């Protein structure tokens, strides 16, 4: 995999990330996700009503991969139902683990398919997964994240 090409995509995504960097008014879920091994730290805010994610945003700091992944995830889930978001979660985990490689199957993930190459970079998987892990816990009603450690999706 060409890492430098992957980074090109990530940089474009990050320049677009600004619109997702905000707190959410009347949020129904606010959850901080942390990667203890590197200090990446994002807070995801969601407003869910009638089973639909009406609004989502994030604050925090981290590497380019974690920030791009978070922003693209927010673009994807905003306006979708919780069930759809959970489906995206499974597809994303499958892609990052390298279990799902079929582009047709991954098509619904849209731009996020650009992170597919991370599946060959075990050291950076947790960067890409942090936001998704936090989303999963937030949708499950957790109020405290257990964080995301190496080798765990």
């Amino acid at each position, binding site marked *: 995999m060409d*890492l*430098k090409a992957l*980074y090109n995509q990530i*940089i474009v995504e*990050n*320049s677009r990330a600004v619109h997702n960097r905000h707190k959410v008014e009347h949020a129904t879920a606010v959850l901080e996700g942390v990667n203890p*091994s*590197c*200090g*990446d*730290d994002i807070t995801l805010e969601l407003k869910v009503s009638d089973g639909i994610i009406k609004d989502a945003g994030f604050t925090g*700091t*981290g*590497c*380019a*991969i974690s920030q791009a992944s978070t922003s693209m995830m927010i673009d994807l889930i905003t306006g979708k139902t919780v069930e759809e978001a959970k489906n995206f979660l499974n597809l994303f985990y499958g892609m990052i683990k390298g279990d799902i490689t079929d582009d047709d199957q991954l098509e619904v993930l849209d731009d996020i398919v650009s992170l597919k190459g991370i599946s060959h*970079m075990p*050291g*950076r998987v947790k*960067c890409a997964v942090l936001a998704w892990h936090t989303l999963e816990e937030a949708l499950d009603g957790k109020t405290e994240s257990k964080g995301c450690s190496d080798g765990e999706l």
Partner: protein
Amino acid sequence: MKIIRDDFPILSVLENGKPLIYLDNAATTSKPLAVLNAVETYYRMDNANPHRGVYELGARATKAHEDSRKIVGDFLNASSDEIVFTQNATESLNLIAYSYGIEFLKKGDEIVLSVAEHHSNLVPWQRVSKITGAKLVYLYPDNMGHLTEEELDKKITSKTRLIAVAQVSNILGIEIPIDSIVRRARNAGAVVVLDCAQSIPHMIVDVKALDVDFAVFSGHKLYAPMGIGVLYGKKDLLDKMPPFLTGGDMIGSVHEQSSTYAEVPRRFEAGTRNVGGEVGLAAAINYLNSLGWENIKNHEKELMTQALKGLTDIPHITIYGDPSPDKRHGVISFNVEEVHPHDTASLLDSDGITVRAGHHCAQPLMEYLKINSCVRVSFGIYNTKEDVDIFINSLKNVRGLMGYGS
């Protein structure tokens, strides 16, 4: 020193299709053939459980175990019975914390650490503090990363009973003023625990000349296998300490309700030992001695000088601690402005260059430096001027690749 690269088989492995530029030596070092062969020979020819079998093979295993101890003792200028084999520096420090700290410290006492300590020389003392009520007191370096005499005067007092410090920080790479610290410890009546994990690959550590009470290090950072570590302790201190782990081989006699313990160092070596690791460590020490410590120091100083010059010439780089090569051993930690350390490390990795990025198991120092994490480049005996050139040239491209103009 270039020729010795051939002694390290892993350095000829391609990474991402490119030659491996291994610059993460402070995390662990590669192992020379001398070490690999010694370990293999032990398991092929001499493997038995030391101190147990009455047969000839058992005697050879015992000899390998005790000969290794003698080589480590000579290396530190200590006697063999002051050397305890452990699995790593972390276990050595825990042994001191539990068998000395918990046993002999009490409420009102103070334990002095530097804020730059690795978690392995910090978390065990938090346990001791919690159990005994002794207070943790931190030394803070100045803005160049040095511990000043004023700071030592302020923190090392008549209440100080134990000082546990790394001789060289795994992030700043700067040597602490150990003579000053030991002098103050003697006046205060405190013991000194010296963590040599990051110093011993780069310099001779003479525990008698330093007059420290305990010293610890890990074999794997000294070109030896993983899973073998060393604790040095002054004999009179070890003698009065209770065991850390208990079980086989550390006993005098065992009855249903009570036991007596073996003399040191065996009192602290419960269960079957990592004799292969010990033999590998002894081989590593012999190998380094044969290269010559003056040669090692001069070679590493050349690399350090070249790397610091290269790094200071690149715009938008922040180096943590004194950027003078005379003050540094083995490591340089830095950040590229506006680029996360993990992204820097991944981009270097795509050029076959391995560096560490993260908090380096020293979160209190990260907090003190007001950063989340940093990149660390660290050198070993087999690194070359070419390695440093490739690293510097690759680093120059990082900001551009991350979309910044310069």
